[in-house]
């Protein structure tokens, strides 16, 4: 990748600064490159970085190599890697165990839309059975219910005394905690938002 020697250019005046920007210090180019690599979803090439920063590719390449060296030397939790022809900020492999451990314990309050829908039906219609949820949502909710049970947001509430004695579900104490409710009467009703214009509610998508 670095067949082109860049030392000469970098120390002196990066005389032909690409677009309108005047000569930037190497430290500044490093800092901006670092910020952009950080926010990028994908590995980013020196070329693209150069276009954004307004410096030529070589200057940027040299700056990032310097940055990479800096990361090596301080041996913190992160590294700059060259991947698929671009640059990327990533955790150092040494700490993969702790990182993995953390990623597993992330907040459990996050729900898929299917789970959220199912939860809302259970919250407002409890106690409610699976067939009843199906009727309201128009979709099978089995896996959503499983998720909600696993996350302890819902609990079983005994069998309903009808044909087939289907299981009924309701929300749990954890549900109240997760959603910051004192008790179920704290659940907002449609009337609570009437002032805020209900029509707007379904516009929002």
């Amino acid at each position, binding site marked *: 990748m670095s067949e082109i020697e860049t030392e000469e250019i970098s120390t002196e005046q990066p005389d032909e600064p690409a677009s309108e920007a005047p000569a930037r210090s190497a430290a500044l180019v490093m800092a901006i490159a670092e*910020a952009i690599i*950080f*926010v*990028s*979803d*994908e590995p980013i090439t020196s070329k693209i970085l150069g276009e954004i920063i307004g410096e030529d590719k070589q200057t940027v390449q040299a700056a990032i190599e310097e940055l990479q060296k800096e990361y090596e030397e301080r041996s913190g939790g992160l590294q700059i890697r060259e991947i698929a022809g671009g640059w990327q*900020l*990533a955790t150092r492999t040494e700490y993969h165990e702790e*990182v993995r451990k953390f*990623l597993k314990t992330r*907040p459990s*309050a*996050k*729900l*898929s*839309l299917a789970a*959220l*829908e199912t*939860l*809302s*039906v259970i*919250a*407002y219609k409890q106690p409610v059975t699976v067939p009843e949820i199906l009727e*309201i*949502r*128009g979709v099978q909710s089995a896996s959503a219910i499983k998720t909600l049970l696993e996350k302890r947001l819902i609990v079983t509430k005994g069998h309903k005394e009808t044909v087939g004695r289907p299981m009924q579900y309701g929300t749990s104490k954890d549900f109240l905690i997760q*959603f*910051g*409710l004192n008790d179920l009467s*704290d*659940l*907002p*009703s*449609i009337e609570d*938002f009437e*002032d*805020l*214009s*209900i*029509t*707007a*509610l*379904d516009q*929002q998508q």
Partner: protein
Amino acid sequence: MQSTTEQYSFNFLTEIPEIVGGSSDELKLKLGEFAGPLDLLLYLIKQEQANIFDIPIAKITNSYLVYIRLMKSLDIAVAADFIVMAATLIEIKSKMLLPRDPAAASDAEEFEDPRKELVDQLLEYEKFKSAAQMLYERSTVEQAVFKRGAIESDDNNAEISATVFDLLTVFQKIVLRHKEEVSLEIEREEISLADMIKALRKRIFAELELNLLTFFEDFHTRRELVTAFIAVLEIVRTEEVKLVQKATFGDIFLKKVGVGSN
């Protein structure tokens, strides 16, 4: 709908309000965004360089009314809250014009400046207005800070975090969706051809002359329109009804044969 209340500002969000003192004594107001009647009032007081504890109520009331009239003339919906404030100002103004009851005046306790409540309200509001400014500045700074892009290791997307508001919103959407499905079912067993012909015949006989356009306007779905169209063809074919067009390219009428035909 109450939500219209704050829409008065939409046209001139970026404008800074300003009163341009012309050569005549007529005040010219440049419209800007006012967050409410108190905001406007505070602005007018500052324009007049008046002391907030001694508001020249007559003058301020006049400016306030000028502004509201201007809003009206520009067809901006003037919110009820603005009009309520106008009424309050007029009331205070008239109270201040009344000669003070000399009997009551001697009793200092009795007399309360009619402006006091308004001043208190303005002072309270002013604090929150400043706080809003602070929040604005903070958010501007925050918008200059970026967090890292998505990384491969986390299975993001597909997951959303939720509040109670989301719960209700989602529930309402489900209910709406449910209702739509139900109403669709009803539409499916919509009016049959036989019923359509019956209805059409009834109308022609009652009205003697029926504009086809009016008739078709009652139907919305494709299916209904098709049924209606077939019903028209059928009734013309089988009954004493004919199609009449009074002018070229004019509307077409269904007429019972033998009634005032031309």
